């Protein structure tokens, strides 16, 4: 789930206007065939991540090239996400605090989480996930009083094509998840029963996250209207600021931000993991010093994009023009070639 719920409404409303919310779930469903392709490669190449599989299927040269691209893209994106933490906090609740403090605090936490291992990472996600769901539900339900149903009408007045383009903007979210799956594959069990369970989990995860993100987009469009939703990049934070219960609870955005920080930590850690796995697989660079080096690179990237609009457009650029095409082509090509080779009974080394 990561932090997709933060920008999703702005993205879909910019492409699909008042109907933008409709495209969220179908775009997420695109993740199902890709998830299943990855799991199919797991059963064919047990205990190997997709970078290792690429070297087997495409040969060393192309495999290494894919690995380098994987490291560069995930590393760059992880750094941008770190920058997003500072940006969100500085812009919303703590404008006077130096942004470097947010970078430093978050990267230390991310490093600690990654050092603790993949099992602790999974458990941390298990702790934070219910908090995210609870915060989202609270945020959305407490905004009901500000809803104006009229802004949704007329439905599909612009046709369905804007929805298609909107879907292409949401699809990278799913591909980020697929990139992480590509790396974590080596840690997953390989017997048929558990792969079956994983397949069911792919379906469940896509639908759960898709439906939640759809509701987030839906509520924001209902509250702000399509134009304002597009303009406000982090509409959910603004919703949090507007929450008011009687005269006791107001401006609880700071509390929600605590939960969003947890979500961001999970996402940045996921990308730190992917870079570390990539370095280990492709260049055989492993150990503490390389993990610290990756964290330093993340910090460097974050410092490179200090302020809001530049950072947001860079994240969108990486999502739309790097992650989406790279993952779409790589996974499809890898799965297809592996199937073809299996059919022909050709084995790599």
């Amino acid at each position, binding site marked *: 789930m990561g932090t997709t719920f933060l920008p999703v409404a702005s993205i879909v409303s910019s492409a699909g206007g008042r109907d933008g919310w409709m495209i969220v779930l179908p775009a997420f469903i695109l993740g199902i065939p890709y998830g299943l392709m990855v799991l199919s490669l797991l059963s064919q190449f047990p205990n190997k991540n997709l970078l290792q599989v690429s070297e087997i299927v495409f040969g060393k040269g192309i495999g290494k090239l894919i690995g380098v691209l994987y490291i560069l893209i995930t590393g760059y994106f992880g750094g941008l996400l770190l920058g997003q933490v500072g940006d969100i906090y500085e812009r919303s609740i*703590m404008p006077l605090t130096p942004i470097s403090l947010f970078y430093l605090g978050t990267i230390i936490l991310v490093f600690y989480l990654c050092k*603790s291992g993949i099992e602790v990472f999974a458990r941390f996600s298990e702790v934070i996930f219910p908090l995210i769901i609870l915060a989202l539900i609270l945020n959305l339900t407490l905004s009901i009083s500000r809803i104006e149903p009229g802004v949704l009408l007329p439905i599909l007045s612009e046709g369905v094509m804007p929805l298609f383009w909107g879907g292409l903007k949401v699809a990278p979210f799913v591909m980020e998840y697929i990139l992480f799956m590509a790396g974590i594959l080596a*840690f997953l069990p390989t017997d048929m029963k558990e792969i079956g369970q994983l397949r069911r989990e792919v379906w469940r995860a896509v639908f759960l996250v898709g439906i939640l993100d759809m509701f987030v987009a839906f509520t924001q469009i209902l509250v702000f209207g399509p134009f304002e939703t597009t303009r406000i990049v982090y509409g959910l934070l603004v919703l949090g600021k507007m929450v008011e219960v009687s005269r006791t609870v107001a401006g609880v955005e700071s509390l929600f931000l*605590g939960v969003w920080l947890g979500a961001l930590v999970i996402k940045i850690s996921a990308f730190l993991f992917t870079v570390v796995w990539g370095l280990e697989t492709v260049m055989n660079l492993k150990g503490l010093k390389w993990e610290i080096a990756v964290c330093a690179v993340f910090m460097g990237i974050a410092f490179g994009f200090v302020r809001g609009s530049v950072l947001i457009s860079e994240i969108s650029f990486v999502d739309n023009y790097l992650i989406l095409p790279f993952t779409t082509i790589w996974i499809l090509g890898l799965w297809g070639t592996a199937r073809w080779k299996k059919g022909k009974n050709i084995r790599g080394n």
Partner: protein
Amino acid sequence: MLTKIIRKSTRKKRRQSSEPLCQNPSGNPTTLSKKLEDNRQAILNTFPKADDLVIREFTIGSEAPVQAFAVMIFGLFNEDSVNENLFKPLLSVHNNQLTGSTLEIIKESILSVSSVQEVQTLEDTVTGILSGDTVLFIDGADRALIASIRGFAARSVEEPSTESVIRGPREGFVESLGTNISLIRRKIKNPNLMVEKMTVGRQTKTSLAIVHIQGIANDEVVQEVKKRICRIETDSVLESGYIESFIEDAPYSLFPTVGNSEKPDIVSAKLLEGRVAILTDGTPLVLTVPYLFIEAFQNSEDYYSRPYLATFIRWLRWLAFFISTFVPALYVAITTYHQELLPTSLLISIASANEGSPFPTIVEALLMQIAYEILREAGLRLPKAVGQAVSIVGALVIGEAAVSAGLVGAPMVVVVALTGISSFVVPAFTDVTTIARFVLLILSSFSGLYGVMLGFAGFVIHQLSLRSFGVPYMSPLVPLNGSGLNDVIIRKPWWAMTSRPHSLSRNTTRQVDSLAPSPPENPGN
């Protein structure tokens, strides 16, 4: 879900514990001599300056007397019992009784002592003497008899002051290992209750016992406990805390991974859930492993009371833990950085109360917290009467006087008082909350709620990475185990708690289902 999958895949790779059990250090034992004088000299050489060593020489039989002597340490043996059950029968022996091996006859027919053991080495006799036993040497025998007639000043069984209850047994463990084992045996009358004794400490030779219920406790955990205790090679073990620090999983962690209790009913309940207990001679505190995070929020009285109140009190404990850890940090963060979170009227009240204070909120908070910790420590260590006086003076100084003098704001006193009281609601974590509170205070002082969240996440990650004897520290919360939650957030009635915690025991069935009370219908209706 991901946790479950990863755990399953890594479980197979996990190291299996199959090392041999603790072996006694193998030296060259000194065998006893058949000559009584040689043995006497050997004992005297072993205890060159021991004025409390008692060597009582005597003869057995009158016609052809057999020379003998008994060795014991003053104050460690029961004098009356030794006179009555050892010397009296021995001194009244007639020679016609001594046909065959004198030692065998004395052991089997003359001594009226429940435990008599035959030993062949000097080392064994020395251990017996030091343990308070009476050792009997007889001329012509290259063995000695160890008669267990111990008796030393000991406290009687009474209610432990640290774990007092309104409903439930009042008895507590004492400093005697034997008494403590018997207190558990009285609760669990089952031959599967395994008691294995060991000795640790080169100088102190402290006895300890590993207790578990075979068939309920996880064998791997039992082996692991033995393995960790066997590797302890230290001079002294004066309290169970020594053992704890040698065997715990995370020695640098704030969070304890070994539990302790002074109450036999609590230790028995833990044994019945599949845990292993470690009893140490000389201390009433019994260690239990594995120890999980949720145990700090459970209390023996929860299980003797009706479930509704027990559940409510348990929620209060969670709340108190939260308050004692987070409230000062949240107060500093909100009043310094996020005033928008407070309703306007409350914000005005706090601002007016803090108006005269010369210090920033964080300085106030640190000063007050440190003052409170000093007073708490002084109150605990001083004699009761003086301690109370300190508490009263402290309450006046850090409360009324500090506010009147305009040094701190009244809301800060409320926060510190609330925090202090809450920290005693979960006594197992009092030290954890104290340290965590200061860490969070400092984080919140320069980064507001971001810092609090950062600290919270850091503590969560740390706790998630902990294990206690192979069991995830946060289970059954994370990884989530539905059936394990029967006794975590709520306390179900006894008839509904049909299984033991899955993470602790392979034999998870505690009782049959359908034990819910179903009284017959009123015949009058």
